[in-house]
């Protein structure tokens, strides 16, 4: 965490106030912090939505197809509001589409958990369990953020995420406590995803000022509560809470896995091939 250079920093600007008049280095630095934080939350939701979209037309049943599409669209909605806000905070004229489609891989701040391939249904459900448990705690806490826009996004998203978590729980229970094969595959999926859980609680990238000002939530403080949501589901599903070495991570600093480039290529290609195209 970085200590602020002056002892009494001015209050953080919220809801996208733009800097005006004489340059104000402290205000610019605060805007940059808020931009980075908002972008991290937005990119988690955006990239997860893109992976969820892969399932459309591929889910095991029509009903599940719609369920996963709904979940992906909820996440996309969160991402859109957050990206628009990030663009406003930045004050450089970038909108939600510019941030989603015209940034390069190193400028994305999402965790590795959400960016990897999830074309195995068990993996998709294991990941949704971890990610929505995290989002449930994060948005729950963010509802009282001193930043009114972040608090507003969180207030709306918390209900959506509760449903995502329930959906993941239903499937983890049924597959974990199902047939011998489904049990084994669900455990394997959980083991694979668990390595990426810890990155969510990393707070090295986050500026302490934002947390102290009540704008951001320190991710590390959510760890116990997130695990308390996940572990009972794992146990009830007759699965074992994995003991695996955490992956290296680095998403919050713009370092991504090989699969991120392919995801972005697919997500961004239309906008980049036809700049300014409209329906």
């Amino acid at each position, binding site marked *: 965490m970085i200590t602020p250079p002056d002892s009494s920093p001015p209050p953080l600007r919220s809801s996208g106030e733009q800097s005006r008049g004489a340059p104000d280095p402290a205000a610019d630095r605060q805007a940059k912090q808020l931009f980075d934080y908002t972008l991290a939350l937005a990119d988690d939701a955006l990239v997860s939505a893109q992976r969820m979209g892969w399932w459309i037309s591929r889910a095991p*049943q*029509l*009903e*599940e197809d*719609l*369920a996963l599409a*709904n979940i992906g669209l909820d996440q996309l909605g969160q991402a859109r509001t957050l990206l628009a806000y990030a663009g406003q905070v930045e004050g450089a004229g970038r909108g939600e589409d510019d941030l989603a489609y015209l940034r390069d891989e190193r400028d994305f701040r999402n965790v590795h958990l959400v960016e990897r391939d999830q074309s195995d249904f068990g993996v998709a459900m294991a990941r949704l369990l971890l990610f929505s448990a995290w989002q449930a705690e994060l948005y729950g806490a963010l509802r009282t953020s001193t930043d009114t826009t972040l608090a507003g996004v969180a207030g709306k998203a918390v209900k959506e995420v509760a449903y995502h978590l*329930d*959906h993941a729980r*239903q499937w983890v229970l*049924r597959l974990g406590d199902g047939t011998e094969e489904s049990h084994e595959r669900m455990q394997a999926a959980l083991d694979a995803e668990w390595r990426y859980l810890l990155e969510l609680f990393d707070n090295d990238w986050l500026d302490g000022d934002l947390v102290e000002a009540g704008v951001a939530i320190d991710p590390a403080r959510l760890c116990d509560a997130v695990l308390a949501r996940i572990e009972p589901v794992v146990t009830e599903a007759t699965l074992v809470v994995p003991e695996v070495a955490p992956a290296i991570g680095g998403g919050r600093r713009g370092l991504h896995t090989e699969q991120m480039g392919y995801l972005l290529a697919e997500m961004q290609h239309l906008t980049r091939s036809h700049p300014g195209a409209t329906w």
Partner: protein
Amino acid sequence: MSSTEWPLWEVFVRSRRGLSHVHAGSLHAPDAEMALRNARDVYTRREEGVSLWVVPSAVIEASTPDERDSFFDPAADKIYRHPTFYDVPEGVEHL
């Protein structure tokens, strides 16, 4: 080979308080809990409802076309069952 198809469920949606649940359609689900969730995802995406029922299609006993004559035709000439033979007193608004 046993069937691997999930059983069929009938979905009833109440659009708002005070109205009754109305049949909206059907869907497949492995059990009642998932049927309820699938119903939410398939039939209430556009704010269609505030309450949902799901019923296994197999437990519904339905009348058949063969029974139409005996079931429904006898009501056709019983017009006195319609409350149309009363003079409504003047000034009564809510009858």
